């Protein structure tokens, strides 16, 4: 077992002439909750898709548990995409069966218990669910696996604050303690206190990787405040051009 669950070295991903990731060096340890933070277009989703094998790197290496991304590492990774990928005619129990078929580490009882808590019945159709409920159901599925690496792409985008609390509490209470959770978001203020570490991505590169409390101690301000400073773009103040 490799010491780090994630190792990226000189990782580049280009879409045509545009480099979404421009040389990422990153090592993530085990048993941590890590925030992958950056504005829109900074490469968060690209990095996550490389880690779960949906994309191939243009250059550089990406290792999960010390191994190149492939079938072996995919079994260790539980991925929450940034948008729903299930057909909306499916019922909640169809999704549970799908996960049970695909993943040996899926805990059926845990997932049905979480669905109960959400008020989602096994016969409920996805089509009839609100956006917030769909997000929560997907998260319940993903967190019901006993994975080594959870990759959650924007799990709290577009849901109300109460649903956000539910989602964050679900993450805290259900991740496998030996596993690492990577949460990508630009809503830092909401998740800062559940994070061990923060990774700032800027224009496809890691510009900061440190423990949240170390950042607070050093900067005397929250990670959210630091983020706003790092990524501030001066607004056009009006006047004639």
């Amino acid at each position, binding site marked *: 077992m490799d010491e780090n669950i994630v190792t990226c070295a000189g990782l580049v991903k280009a879409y045509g002439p545009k480099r979404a990731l421009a040389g990422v060096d990153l090592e993530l340890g085990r*048993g*941590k*909750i890590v925030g992958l933070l950056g504005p829109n277009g900074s490469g968060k989703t690209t990095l996550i898709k490389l880690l779960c094998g949906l994309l191939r790197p243009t250059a550089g290496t990406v290792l999960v548990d010390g191994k190149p991304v492939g079938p072996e590492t995919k079994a260790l990774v539980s991925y929450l995409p940034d948008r729903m990928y299930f057909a909306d005619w499916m019922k909640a129990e169809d999704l549970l069966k799908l996960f049970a078929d695909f993943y040996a580490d899926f805990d059926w009882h845990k997932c049905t218990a979480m669905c109960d808590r959400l008020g989602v019945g096994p016969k409920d159709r996805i089509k009839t669910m609100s956006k917030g409920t769909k997000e929560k159901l997907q998260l319940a599925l993903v967190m019901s696996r006993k994975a080594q690496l959870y990759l959650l792409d924007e799990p709290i985008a577009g849901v109300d604050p109460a649903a956000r*609390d539910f989602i*964050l*509490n679900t993450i*805290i*209470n259900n991740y496998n*303690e030996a596993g690492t959770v990577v949460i990508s978001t630009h809503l830092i203020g909401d998740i*800062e*206190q*559940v*994070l*061990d570490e923060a990774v700032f991505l800027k224009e496809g590169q890691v510009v900061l990787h440190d423990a*949240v*409390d*170390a950042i*607070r*101690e050093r900067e*005397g*301000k*929250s990670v*959210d*405040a630091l983020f706003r400073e790092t990524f501030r773009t001066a607004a056009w103040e009006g006047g004639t051009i």
Partner: protein
Amino acid sequence: MTWKLTGDRPIWQQLTEQVTLRILTGEYPPGGRLPAVRELAAQAGVNPNTMQRALAQLEQDGLAVGSRTAGRTVTEDAAVITAAKEERARAAAKAYLEALAALGYGPGDAGRLIEEEGQQNG
């Protein structure tokens, strides 16, 4: 009592302070069992590792005893709790004096104001 966290300081320090306060006010009584790390973390909405660090500090301070596996209890040593209370009270007094000094009041005024307030509040 609810958990309140501000952005300017490390989270674990704020958690240590707030659990300490709960011990000093008797919400967690001497010799009583402290809730598990995960439970406290869920209550406060924070990372379990951060709560773990906060509780480790309480052990260093002598306010909590025990281990992560067996669970922690509040110390039964009344002297430790009294000393921690005294320290808190002094910090509050110091903050009060600083606030008055900013308004141009000296320590003499501070005493007078406290006495007057005390009389008004019976």
